[in-house]
Every structure is written in structure tokens, then in C-alpha cells.
């Protein structure tokens, strides 16, 4: 057995996985044969193992989360969930301070509770838009929905699998959504759940292409969230 000082590049690239114990038996045997004949490869392995120890030692401190902080974070998350699920309490019918006594048509306008009325109108507008998007998404994907405000049942088994999950920003116009879907050659492929809808490319794409597509969607001005559906 003679030492060869030029490490085999292909074997050198496998060393990190040899060091972390994840190589399959045949690749492992190949690396071991290379190590037996090359001093340079052995030196490479030593450097790789040193880096692995460094990352293991240093990284162990990265997730030092204490229980109190974890509990506080969970509490905040649950409060956010509650805020999303439970509808906001209705505005009180009385004002904090009584308005000055007035009479006539203009006074009745002033006495009208504009704030709750405007809030109710805005809510109705958002519901209407969500309903429209749901309807149009449903019509395209062929899924069945129980209510206008969102799905109560899962999409039909025949519905195509979603590759990407999308959430459009509040106020995104259906025209812009349609344009984005057409531009990226996408169709709706899942139920709208909590404002998140599944989409899929019309032609099959590789994982890398899906990742690139997701990255493009993520920077769209009308997209609030884009992630792989898997």
C-alpha cells in the first residue's frame, strides 16, 4: 500500500458525510479504501472532523432556551391564535362622555355611531372579497366549499395536490391574483384554509423549480406568505 498525495476529489467531497456517519455502506467502503492509500485524504478527514467537533461544541449552546421564556412565547402565540379565532367584541353602544345636546338633522348625523358602522362596512368588504376569491378559486379547482367565508370540509379527493401554499395580502385584487397565477402558470389546487390556499403548476416541475417558483411568489407585492406544501 503506497501513499498517494493527491486526494481523490470525489472522495474528498464525501468526507463530511463519512465524518457524520451518514454514508451508505458502499460509499463508506470506497472512502475507507481511499483513506488507506492517501495521506492527503487522511489529512483532509482530520480537518473535516475538527470542523465537525467545532460546530458540535459551539452549536450546542445555540438553543439554550429556558422554560420561562418558552412558556411566555407559547402564551403569546396562543393569544394571537385566540385573536384570530374569536371575533372582536362589538363596540360598546355608549360613548365614554355624553355628546352635547343637539337637535335636528345635522345633530342626528353627529349622534350616529360612525366608528362601528365604518368598521362593520370594512369587515363586510373583506368578507365579500374573501368570499369572491374562495368562489373563484373553488370554481377553478373544482373543490367543494361549505360556506362563503371558508372551507368547512376538505377538498375533494380528486383535487390535484397543492405544491405551494399561498396567502394573499389583504386588499390584493382578484385581477392581480389572476395575473400572477397566469404569469406563473399556476392553478388553485386546494381548499382555502385560514386565508391560505394551495396552488400547483399546470405542468410538472422539479423540486428545484418549485423552490425557485416559491421564491418568486414570496417577493410578489400581493403575496403575504408562500411556502412549499409538500
Amino acid at each position: 500500500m503506497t501513499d498517494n498525495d493527491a486526494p481523490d476529489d470525489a472522495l474528498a467531497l464525501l468526507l463530511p458525510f463519512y465524518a457524520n456517519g451518514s454514508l451508505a455502506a458502499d460509499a463508506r467502503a470506497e472512502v475507507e479504501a481511499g483513506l488507506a492509500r492517501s495521506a492527503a485524504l487522511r489529512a483532509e478527514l482530520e480537518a473535516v472532523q475538527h470542523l465537525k467537533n467545532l460546530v458540535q461544541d459551539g452549536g450546542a449552546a445555540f438553543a439554550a432556551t429556558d422554560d420561562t421564556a418558552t412558556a411566555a412565547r407559547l402564551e403569546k402565540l396562543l393569544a394571537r391564535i385566540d385573536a384570530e379565532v374569536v371575533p372582536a367584541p362589538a363596540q360598546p353602544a355608549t360613548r365614554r362622555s355624553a355628546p352635547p345636546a343637539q337637535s335636528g338633522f345635522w345633530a342626528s348625523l353627529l349622534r350616529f355611531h360612525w366608528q362601528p358602522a365604518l368598521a362593520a362596512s370594512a369587515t363586510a368588504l373583506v368578507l365579500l372579497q374573501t368570499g369572491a376569491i374562495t368562489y373563484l378559486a373553488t370554481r377553478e379547482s373544482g373543490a367543494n366549499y361549505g360556506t362563503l367565508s371558508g372551507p368547512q370540509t376538505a377538498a375533494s379527493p380528486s383535487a390535484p395536490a397543492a405544491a405551494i401554499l399561498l396567502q394573499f395580502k389583504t386588499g390584493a385584487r382578484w385581477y392581480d391574483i389572476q395575473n400572477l397565477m397566469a404569469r406563473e402558470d399556476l392553478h388553485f389546487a386546494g381548499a382555502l384554509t385560514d386565508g391560505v390556499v394551495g396552488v400547483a403548476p399546470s405542468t410538472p416541475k422539479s423540486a428545484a423549480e418549485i423552490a425557485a417558483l416559491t421564491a418568486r411568489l414570496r417577493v410578489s407585492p400581493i403575496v403575504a406568505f408562500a411556502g412549499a406544501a409538500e
Partner: protein
Amino acid sequence: VEIAAHLKAIAGGSRGAFTQLYAELLPRMQRYATGLLAGDSGAAADAVDEAFMAIWRSAGSYTGSGNAEGWIRHIVRNKVIDALRRQKERPLASDEAMRQLEAIPDDADTPAEAAEKKDVSHELKAALARLTPDHREVVWLCYFEEKSVTEIALQVGCPENTVKTRLFHARKQLKDILLAAGKDEMIKR
């Protein structure tokens, strides 16, 4: 299987399942996000919590095919990418400016803080922070999480050969970074 069951329950609106999933996965996800964010545990906590909110909203879209933890990791990874994008928008000091800043003795440091600065974790954070996010991710997944090349390629979304060459270049860069920072004792030449 248990994670998939939690996701199913969460899709049905179970806060209990959400709490269990959070408690179970937080250490792993927090560590993963912290590794990708070069030790910035605050940004990692925000990214992980945003990911769990997204899980709450979209658990119903997990189809049951594929690894449930992998599905969750994708969501965490996306939130980390968002955090990195926000960091990119902030002006960053140059490497040389950072080195000069770190070289200045800080009288405000307590003995514990001074010791922490010598700590391997601190040095690793500083070195990882100078890698590109792509290189940092493969270093973390291979050397800390001990994932196989196939698993990393799947998670990162690139070919296996790209994973291998990224690891190769990342190790060279880490060596140069530590040498330039005078941390000769931390590298194996």
C-alpha cells in the same frame, strides 16, 4: 407519525395539540433556525414563532404524504429566509470594520462576558455569520444535525453535488475566516 397526528388535530382547531407540538419541536426548530441565522437567537425565536403561527393556519394542508417534520422544517426555513431578507435590507458593516470593532477592548464587559467572548460558541457564531446563508445552511445540517447528503439536498432544494461542493467551499472559507481572525488554534491546517 405523532407529529402528523398533531397536525391533523391542529387542523381541527386543537390548541392542546398545538401546545404539544410546540413543546416537542421547539428545541430542534430553535436550534435549526439559530444555526441558519448564525447564532442570532432573537431573530431565530421570531422566525420559529412565525412558523408556528403559519402551522396553525395551514396544518390542514399537510396531506400526510412525506415527512411531517420535514414539512414543518420547510415552513421554519421560509421564515428564516424572510428574516435573512430583512437583515439584508439593513446596512451591514464590512468584514474589516467588524474585525476592528471586535478588537477594541470593551470595559463594560463583565468577567463572564469576557469569558463568553473566548467561548467556542461565540467564535463559531462570528465565523458562521461571515458565510453566505447557503453555505451556512449546509454546514449546519451536515456537521451539527448530521444529515445525509440526500436529506440535505431534499431540504435545501438543490442537487446532491451542489450540497457537496457548497460544503467544500464553506470549509475553505471558514478556515480563511478563522485564520484572518487570528484563531489559528481553532482550525486544523
